[in-house]
């Protein structure tokens, strides 16, 4: 098998791996965000953005070329280890993306739990009309 063909197979495998992770996470992420914000549309939007970031960072990680020769045929053992290296960088990208999404959800969660400043001051900031 040529190195380019093996590399493209590895890239397609990283796309598939990222897609499987997105499918696994999307439903529970949307449920969690809906519970946080009580708005299904807003939760679906940010769940879609987070899922796409996971997919794209996984694909970006899967572009690692460590171990591959530039061109020509590649032996089984060298191809195996090159593809293992490519999968390792895919998993690194996916781990980074998951960490970022989890960090963002944790920050949103902490902000939504914290009482708003207006409530601490007796709701004075909510008064907007000139007659009030």
């Amino acid at each position, binding site marked *: 098998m040529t190195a380019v*063909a093996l590399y493209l197979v590895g890239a397609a495998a990283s*796309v598939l791996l990222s897609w499987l992770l997105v499918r696994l996470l999307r439903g529970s992420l949307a449920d969690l965000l809906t519970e946080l914000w009580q708005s299904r549309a807003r939760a679906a939007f940010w769940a879609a*953005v987070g899922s796409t970031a996971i997919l794209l960072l996984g694909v970006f990680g899967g572009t690692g070329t460590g171990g591959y020769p530039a061109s020509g045929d590649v032996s089984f053992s060298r191809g195996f280890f090159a593809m293992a290296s490519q999968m390792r960088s895919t998993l690194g990208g996916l781990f980074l993306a998951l960490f970022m999404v989890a960090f963002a959800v944790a920050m949103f969660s902490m902000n939504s739990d914290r009482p708003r400043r207006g409530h601490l001051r007796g709701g004075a900031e909510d008064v907007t009309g000139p007659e009030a």
Partner: protein
Amino acid sequence: MTLTGAESEEVFTLLGGLAVALGTAALAAHVLVPGVRPHLDVLCRDARLGRFWGRLFVVSLLLAMPLGAAAAWFMPGDILRPEAEGVRRGALMLRAAAVLALGFLWALLLVALHFEARLPRVARRDGGEAPGRSRSERGAVGR
């Protein structure tokens, strides 16, 4: 017309890289479309505007990824590695496609955050005004 071994490998790299980039773009659009539309309607306060911006974003993403990959293939090589060919050129194609798509996603995120900050808190929680009516129609009902 017959291609030499090196030429056929380059063509295979181009077609394979384009296929992977297009597949990734299609998957990204498949994830984005159902989730993004309802909230864009709320952010734009108009269902037609939300539909327009949603479609524009997805079509741009679908076009940008393969176009970025193709542009990277036509470049003579990386600045750091001018002799890029074969696997290195395929990697450049996929990286260009992924970076472009991440840039589009980042732009969508910033625009959404900007418009969310302008929404009243109650509209944000309840999903905003009823979508499906244009701004002028709502104005007519109000009058």
